[in-house]
């Protein structure tokens, strides 16, 4: 079972966190910090699994992670999960995000937290893998977007928020952060 899913950037700033077991709010922050410490000091070409930190349960838990450009995707799982399976699941998650956001970047995660959560909820439920079929998840996401549109009666394009920001003369900054080509990502696509 998946105990927690953490996404944070290269500086340890959390971008999405989801705990499937109860942790108090300050414990959650500690877990994030500890996990960041453990993961960020690792080279890029070492293995993607390591034993969990003490807060998350130590040796009985594994951290399985992938590092994409500016973001770490970390899944904390128990021994009942296949390591490679979870690694693939992270890939499915990221590819799905990429499809839903058309070239996903860190900003999309920040500005569209609700959508990212929606996608994650389609993928993992209560700490268990719900759906692995990317097309199905994307279809459900689009359906939801349509529903949202029909309910609010205006068009809610995914990129609207980002463009709002761009209007505010932040575009230079954005370009720096955006990960259109996702270096390690593309190496996975090769």
């Amino acid at each position, binding site marked *: 079972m998946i105990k927690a899913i953490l996404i944070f950037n290269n500086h340890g700033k959390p971008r999405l*966190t989801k705990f499937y077991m109860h942790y108090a709010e300050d414990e959650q922050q500690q877990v994030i910090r500890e996990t960041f410490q453990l993961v960020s000091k690792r080279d890029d070409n070492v*293995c993607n*699994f390591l034993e969990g930190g003490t807060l998350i349960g130590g040796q009985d838990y594994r951290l399985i992670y992938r590092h994409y450009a500016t973001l770490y995707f970390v899944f904390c799982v128990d021994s009942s999960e296949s390591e490679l399976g979870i690694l693939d699941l992270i890939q499915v998650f990221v590819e799905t995000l990429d499809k839903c956001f058309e070239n996903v970047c860190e900003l999309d995660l*920040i500005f569209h937290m609700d959508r990212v959560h929606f996608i994650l909820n389609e993928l993992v439920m209560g700490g268990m893998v719900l759906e692995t079929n990317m097309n199905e998840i994307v279809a459900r996401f689009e359906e939801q977007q349509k529903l949202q549109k029909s309910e609010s009666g205006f068009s809610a394009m995914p990129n609207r928020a980002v463009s709002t920001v761009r209007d*505010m003369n932040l575009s230079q900054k954005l370009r720096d952060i955006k990960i259109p080509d996702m270096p390690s990502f593309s190496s*996975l696509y090769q």
Partner: protein
Amino acid sequence: VKDSMRGLAVFISDIRNCKSKEAEEKRINKELANIRSKFKGDKALDGYQKKKYVCKLLFIFLLGNDIDFGHMEAVNLLNSNKYTEKQIGYLFISVLISENNELMRLVQQNLKNDLASRNPVHVNLALECIANIGSKEMAEMFAPEIPKLLVMGDAGDTVKQSAALCLLKLFRTAPEMVPIGDWTSRVIHLLNDQHMGVVTAAVSLIEALVKRNPDDFKGCVSLSISRLARIVTSSYTDLQDYTYYFVPAPWLSVKLLRLLQNYPPPEDTTVRNRLAECLETILNKAVEPPKSKKVQHSNAKNAVLFEAISLIIHMDSDPSLLVRACSQLGQFLSNRETNLRYLALESMCLLATSEFSHDAVKRHQETVVTALKSERDVSVRQRAVDLLYAMCDRSNAEEIVGEMLTYLETADYSIRGELVLKIAILAEKYASDYTWYVDTILNLIRLAGDFVSEEVWYRVIQIVINREDVQAYAAKTVFEALEAPACHENMVKVGGYILGEFGNLIAGDARSSPSTQFQLLHGKFHLCSPPTRALLLSAYIKLVNLFPEIREDIIAVLESDANLRNSNVEIQQRASEYLSLARNSTQDVLATVLEEMPPFPERESSILAQLRKKKPAVEDAIRARGEKQQQRPASGAADGAAASAAPTAATPTSGGGGGVKLQGDIAGAESNTDSDLLGLDFGGSAPAAAAGGGGAGGGSVDLLSSILDVGVSSSSSSSAAPSAASGASAQRKTVVVGAGASGSIVGEENWHKFVCKNSGVLYENDILQVGVKCDYQQSSGRIVVYYGNKTPAPLAQFASVINLPDSSLTNQLGIQVKPVGDRVGASEQVNEVITVDCMAEFSACPLLNIRFVYSGVAQSITLKLPLTINKFMQSSEMDSATFFQHWKQLSQPEQECQKIFQAKFPMDAETTKTKILGFGFSLLSNIDSNPANFVGAGIVQTKSGNIGSLFRLEPNQQAQMYRLTVHSIKPGVSKRLCELLETQL
């Protein structure tokens, strides 16, 4: 026109533009105030606004701030008919509301509504939320409902999928809440479902359910195998969207292979062959050229492969598959991908435990050693250590231990402790030559002294003491080790102990003369912590015995102020007592008192136990292999068996009063804890020996002082912590075990009345009335005993003791007594409160012994305490399907107890009902086809677990007989409940 939450975007960019932490905090506080005022304001917020603010709160929470409002608004969003609003409400709740929030009731009401909704999207949102919270309360409320969604014919695929996982989550939280019913058999057939997503979710659920009662789900084995066969042999186009980078349905395959690991290899030959075919196909695909160069392809393929290998190892029955698996893993060991090397090492660890493949694994030793030396990643090196440990046997032990020792020098701090344990265990287990063992452990201390736990150095001492052939060598080696300019404190401890015992064996060599030995040890003394110094003092007194010629030197050390007046009581006490011993005893006495330690009793190595705590699975597997191959080391000490305690043996008196050996807690400043660990068999030794053995260092010598009358100050011994044995006797005892002197038991008749009720008079005679009132909650109880003096004179020296006639009761019941005063005045009533914790099921009955003096005559009364197992039983309601299901499950011969007996009381149905309810069972109607029969259920609650029990009572009016049948999870419980209930009918 409203845009898509422009305010949110602006807020987020504001935060991102903040230059400092303070600025960010300020901006956040401003926003929180804004949202708070909006929520509190008069103007009703519309759903869109609420959604926007909830999103802001989520973002603020993500930044690490506590959110203490907005919960109500989020719950209100659940009421919305708009999907978007509902969804954001649920999101807030699953991220921010913890299971004990007071709003949970409202949330549950909404969940109920949505679960019953005809809109599958709403149903899914509810299921998702239930699973994400996954609390016990959720399980109580929804676990009985969800199975319907799962097997309902018309539920959509996505609902089924979510329902399966939701139920799984609740099952993990509170398995007892998930009902057993006909849905369980239907759930297996979801394995045949058209929708792969449903199948995947269902397999996860089934895998968990299987663990509860495998037999009920046996059918899933052949279904899983045929499903697997269809996936493995299909060309990937068949599975369309569930093909991931040219690998057909990898997640489902992995799950199916996992599920099969819950069962032994199938018995049916056709099924078994089909499975073997699947596994072979998977192994074959591993060597086929890849269909894609992308890493995802090989990842997914290997995920399936590794799981297949796990299954092969689990079945452990097909040598050819095992060997193929091993060679496949061997190739991965040198793969370019670190992940694969890691996993290969891990899987091989399991493979090494199979007798068929153990040798095949050993062939890769060199590669693994290279991995240990050259892998850049500590996670991988750790796996390499595990594998070396698993593949170690007598043939390669010296080599592997050598490599591990080399690695220890550079190993990461995080894994040194475990590495030390592993080396210690292997060295002991496979030592054919004990000089090698001693060298290895001393090397361990030298290389990683800080990581050498007490168990490890205790163990080397135990082994040296038990093996005469290695003693001289050990003495020589520690002596040399101590000669190093700097040595670890653990080395000093081992050195002190061993030289104290066996220094004489090397004293012939001028380089290690008695005084050199003493000087060498004493040279380290000042650098050591008090516990080690205390140990060294014991070593010195032993040296006094071995070498009379250095007696004066040692006396000088003992009588120095630094020791005799040390602020540490242990050191002070030892110094003063040893000083008296050294000064005043004759050589004969010394020789007897300070005689060499006797061998330790052989027990399982405590080191092994410690490691097993760290790595239960691997350790057990390795042990299982050991047993399978029966390649246990021949010598006793190497058997992984030896005293678990520190070498602080107390030995029985060897003859009359004079021959007491030194209660050798030479190791012992830690003796307070050691004495608890000891549990040594004192055999028929004098009680004095027991007291000394239990006591700390001082205590033991103190014992000598009384026997030998050598004038050791005994006042100081009170400073040593009281031992379990001697300390207890000093205080007034309220609970004793197995004390013989209780006399005959009176008032048994009244006791029987308490089986079904909780208050009344337990005993009465002309002098005393004993009343009892008790109440029980779950596994705890409180018994108040009222002692009433019926006479016009006081009862003096009044005391009561609970006596546990059966020593097993000490583990089963935790009894605490708040004792009464020692006097009960004329016509006065006093009460005594006894609290009881039921640790485990019990059947013996504690006794209550009351003593007092009435008009000069001592009286003693022994009563049975009205404390029976059924007091901890809570009645349990269930429907007939559940009842019969449980009844069937608990029908092993030892779980069932049946009695046919004559009625002792009039057979009146109403009275019987009252008794049964008082006993603790429920009465369930409409279950037994014969309305005259009684059936019911109860759960005995103990600290170590709940024990479900069921009963059926069949009266036969004509014969005036009953037939009583009790089923219970625990054999002893059904018997005891049956016995107790019988006395009441």
